[in-house]
């Protein structure tokens, strides 16, 4: 057997022996292996074949169970289930429930819809988490046997190629082993335009480590020339028509022609993200020599007969040797000794710190969805309770005739489970549809690859569990109550009068709803305000009307001198475009997701505390940048043409930098490492909209050789027309360059994405919960008024005014609300504090949000109480006294 058997196989072997007691353990294991092989081969054919294999197997096991009772079977009959009796009862109850559901279509639709919405929310969140964390990679052979090597602690676990070689040389427990890194690269297929895609640069061991066969051709080897590539299956189909003559053809990657030597198998995805990769190429020679360049992830396959501990032990020894050698070499960044972690299986796909973050977000989203689901199910529970109470006399009679209470409860719960099952199926269907849409939909600019969120059995299982829990939540308490003890009174009275326990149950259910709704509504207002504040945050610069265009010459292998000449010429041509009022270059755009950090620099006159080295964001800009961005210079000057290569090195810093590192105020003339501060600019934002603005340093473009610059243009008149001309300038100089100009606000949209998502989600959730809760309150109050008609009739007959009646009922309703509101406020505060870091411009205890939420909910709830109260006051006292 290859390694330890997968979990499904172990479960199957166990089940097999339970059903057929004379099969021994080795045979059961073999049967499990054969079943595994059949499933695998069937899945390769089609999903239908795979489903057929499962269905056949489960049916065979089920029949095997039944047959055990035959006379030729000695040995113990299975006590798994008392099959026929229970099964028939449940089937009958379910059938009755379905007919019931079809008789009340409105109720059924609302019920299935609201529970389905809550379940769909949970399943959607789980699908994303599943795709990232738990779903095993398709196509890869035995993904449980893959292991990745991480650093202990918080930093990103990337290695340099020489370190990778030294670390894995001579290691036998993990083999084959590979280094890889996803890359945004510009690729051009023959006859096509250059475009940016997500590719992977990898060492020769990558495909062997994954154990995947090529669809065509072969993977690259260490002795291959570096200008070869393996393309993805979809790319092969789309751009090359799936023809076998693609081998040997050339595509341009990063400015150089690469020969296609292989096609990856269909469905092969990235290890770390649920995306399909379309390009694989070898790690370039320059990178193989640089010990200081750390950007590769490591993955390997554990040898068949070893455990993860053996691998960890062997690698620990190797790592210790490597770090020692690096210290002796005084190789700067690699010298930091770290402990390494080796994780196998699904743990190999995501870095430990990312896993924590993802799980955190996931838990938060699930909690949110659960609140909605709870509100929906409590509504339904109330309705089920009402219907159940109407059948009380029937139950009383049945109980008196000897039916077990358990039997009755089971029947009632089955009805709720049927609704929940329908809701679950609906939720799964909707989520599956959405997942397919996302997978086949437009590709986002920041991740040019096809995401794959397809569902697997885990999602189905969560859906099933969720449906069962929802069904129980809806049905169990009402069922227990309705079949409870004081049925004698029920038989006598006919109509439930003064059903105190039931009233308390209802009241608690409604309180739960109110709490949930209030929390969600407050959160909705809070995040909407946060979103508005994000739009109003003072950025420190003015992006309106500015167009930006990234020119990345590194992709085309330009040298520094050639790059400098390119940018000089581009500057001339761009400035000549009609309508251009200001032009400048910068290395990065604020709030667009990319930034460079400088740490540990030396500021003259500043003594950093021991564990807190100075940290700042660095941008490289041309003269005229600050004027273009409308960033006020509050001391000294900006950059001039005199700040060039060979002249004394200068920097400009932000106010926040001065506040942090030049406490005695006079920054002009101070030295930062080798450079001198010549200017101070007002604080501005770079990394995010929340929190305090961080320290910023700007360096002069002419003094730093860069191959990637973003052209910034402020135009008079229509910016869109200018953008076209900007792109043309670049294309005229080099047609192989990717040239895309866009509005600066558009580039910064990423920073606003999260607040927008949050506020939309909470707003939607809040409205849904509010609608459900108001229905709930109305329903309960109506019911309560209905049970007290006699009392109201008496009061009215004795001279109570309508106002007094309304007041009475409202007062009672308000006690209900108060408790619910208290709980809701508490929950809202908890949510706000947990999400505090995501709020911009408002605090978690924002009084406007809390007040607004309370106001909305009070208005709705009071209305829901008032309507039945008014109805009670309008009763004709005589008729209400007469009918019971």
């Amino acid at each position, binding site marked *: *057997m290859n390694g330890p058997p997968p979990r499904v196989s172990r479960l199957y072997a166990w089940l*097999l022996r339970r*059903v*057929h007691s*004379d*099969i*021994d353990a080795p*045979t*059961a294991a*073999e*049967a499990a*292996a*054969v*079943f595994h*092989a*059949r499933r695998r081969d069937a899945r390769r054919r089609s999903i239908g074949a795979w489903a*057929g294999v499962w269905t*056949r*197997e489960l*049916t*065979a*096991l089920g*029949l*095997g169970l039944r047959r055990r009772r035959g006379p030729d079977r000695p040995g113990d009959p299975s006590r798994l289930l008392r099959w026929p009796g229970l099964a028939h009862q449940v089937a009958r109850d379910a059938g009755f429930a379905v007919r019931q559901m079809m008789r009340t279509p409105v109720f059924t639709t609302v019920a299935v819809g609201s529970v389905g919405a809550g379940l769909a929310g949970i399943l959607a969140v789980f699908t994303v988490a599943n795709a990232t964390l738990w779903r095993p990679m398709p196509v890869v052979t035995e993904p449980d046997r893959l292991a990745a090597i991480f650093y202990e602690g918080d930093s990103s676990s990337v290695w340099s190629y020489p370190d990778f070689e030294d670390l894995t040389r001579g290691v036998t427990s993990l083999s084959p082993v590979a280094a890889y890194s996803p890359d945004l690269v510009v690729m051009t297929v023959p006859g096509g335009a250059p475009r940016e895609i997500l590719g992977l640069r990898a060492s020769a061991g990558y495909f062997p480590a994954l154990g995947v066969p090529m669809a065509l051709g072969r993977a690259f080897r260490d002795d291959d020339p570096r200008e070869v590539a393996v393309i993805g299956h979809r790319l092969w189909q789309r751009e090359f028509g799936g023809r076998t003559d693609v081998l040997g053809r050339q595509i341009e990657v990063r400015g150089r022609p690469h020969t296609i030597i292989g096609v990856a198998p269909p469905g092969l995805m990235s290890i770390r993200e649920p995306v399909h990769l379309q390009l694989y190429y070898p790690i370039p020679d320059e990178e193989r020599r640089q010990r200081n360049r750390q950007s590769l992830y490591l993955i390997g396959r554990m040898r068949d007969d070893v455990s993860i501990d053996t691998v960890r032990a062997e690698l620990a020894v190797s790592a210790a040797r490597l770090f020692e050698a690096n210290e002796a070499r005084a190789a700067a960044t690699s010298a930091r000794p770290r402990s390494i972690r080796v994780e196998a299986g699904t743990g190999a796909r995501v870095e430990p710190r990312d896993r924590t973050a993802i799980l955190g977000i996931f838990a938060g989203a699930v909690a949110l969805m659960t609140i909605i689901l709870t509100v929906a199910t409590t509504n339904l529970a109330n309705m089920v309770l009402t219907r159940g109470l109407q059948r009380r006399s029937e139950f009383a009679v049945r109980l008196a005739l000897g039916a077990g209470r358990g039997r009755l409860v089971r029947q009632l719960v089955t009805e709720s489970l049927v609704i929940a099952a329908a809701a679950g199926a609906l939720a799964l269907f909707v989520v599956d549809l959405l997942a397919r849409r996302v997978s086949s939909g437009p590709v986002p600019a920041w991740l040019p690859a096809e995401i794959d969120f397809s569902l697997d059995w885990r999602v189905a299982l969560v859906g099933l569990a969720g449906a069962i829990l929802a069904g129980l939540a809806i049905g169990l308490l009402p069922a227990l109550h309705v079949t409870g003890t004081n049925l004698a009174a029920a038989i006598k009275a006919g109509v439930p009068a003064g059903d105190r326990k039931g009233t308390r149950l209802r009241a608690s259910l409604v309180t739960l709803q109110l709490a949930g709704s209030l929390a969600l509504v407050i959160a909705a207002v809070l995040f909407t305000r946060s979103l508005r504040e994000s739009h109003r945050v003072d950025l420190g610069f003015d992006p309106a009307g500015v167009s930006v265009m990234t020119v990345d010459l590194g992709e085309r292998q330009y040298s520094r001198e050639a790059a400098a000449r390119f940018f000089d010429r581009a500057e001339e041509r761009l400035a000549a475009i009609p309508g251009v009022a200001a032009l400048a270059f910068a290395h990065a755009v604020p709030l667009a997701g990319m930034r460079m950090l400088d740490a540990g620099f030396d500021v003259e006159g500043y003594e950093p505390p021991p564990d807190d080295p100075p940290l700042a964001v660095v941008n490289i800009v041309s003269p005229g940048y600050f004027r273009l961005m409308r960033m006020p210079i509050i001391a000294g000057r900006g950059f001039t043409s005199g700040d060039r290569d060979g002249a004394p090195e200068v920097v400009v810093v932000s106010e926040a930098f001065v506040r942090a590192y030049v406490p005695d105020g006079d920054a002009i003339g101070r030295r930062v490492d080798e450079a001198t501060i010549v200017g101070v600019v007002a604080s501005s934002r770079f990394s995010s909209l929340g929190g305090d603005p961080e320290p910023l340093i700007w360096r002069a473009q002419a003094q730093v050789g860069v191959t990637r610059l973003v052209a910034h243009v402020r135009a008079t008149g229509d910016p869109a027309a200018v953008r076209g001309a900007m792109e043309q300038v670049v294309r005229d100089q080099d047609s192989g360059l990717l040239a895309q100009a866009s509005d600066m606000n558009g580039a910064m949209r990423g920073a606003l994405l999260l607040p927008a998502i949050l506020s939309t989600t909470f707003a939607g959730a809040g409205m849904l919960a509010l609608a459900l809760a108001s229905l709930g309150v109305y329903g309960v109050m109506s019911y309560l008024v209905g049970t007290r008609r006699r009392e109201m009739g008496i009061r009215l007959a004795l001279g109570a005014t309508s106002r007094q009646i309304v007041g009475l009922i409202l007062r009672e309703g308000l006690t209900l609300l108060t408790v619910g509101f208290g709980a809701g406020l508490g929950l809202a505060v908890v949510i706000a504090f947990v999400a505090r870091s995501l709020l911009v411009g408002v605090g978690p205890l924002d009084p406007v949000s809390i007040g607004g939420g309370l106001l909305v909910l009070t208005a709705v709830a009071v209305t829901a109480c008032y309507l039945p109260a008014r109805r009670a006051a309008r009763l004709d006292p005589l008729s209400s006294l007469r009918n019971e």
Partner: protein
Amino acid sequence: MTPASRAARDPRRLLPLPAHDLQILIALAERPRHGYALLDALEQQTGGRTRLGTSTLYAALTRLQRAEVIADAPPPPDADSTDERRRYYQITAFGRAVMREEALRIRQLDRLLADARVLEAAPGSRGGA
């Protein structure tokens, strides 16, 4: 199950054979096979109409082994390396006897059916409902 001495064991006592046993024996009579190959062979025998559950097959194999109708077999020399770890099954001499007895029984049945003209196409012209 402790069998009596082999000579005293009567193959006819195992008749009629349960549902798929005869098919398994026919497949194994051709040559020894392992579990997965048996499933394929059975599927082919019925032209794809019958696809057995893995549990059904292995329950049958266990039963047949207990009755000493089949036995473990060494892997054949032309098996490839991945098959080494699989168990091969072969039919025993006793098993062949059982198979033959069952075949005789079926043939008798077939003659009975022919005599009663059960499968004749003519509607209602001969006797019999």
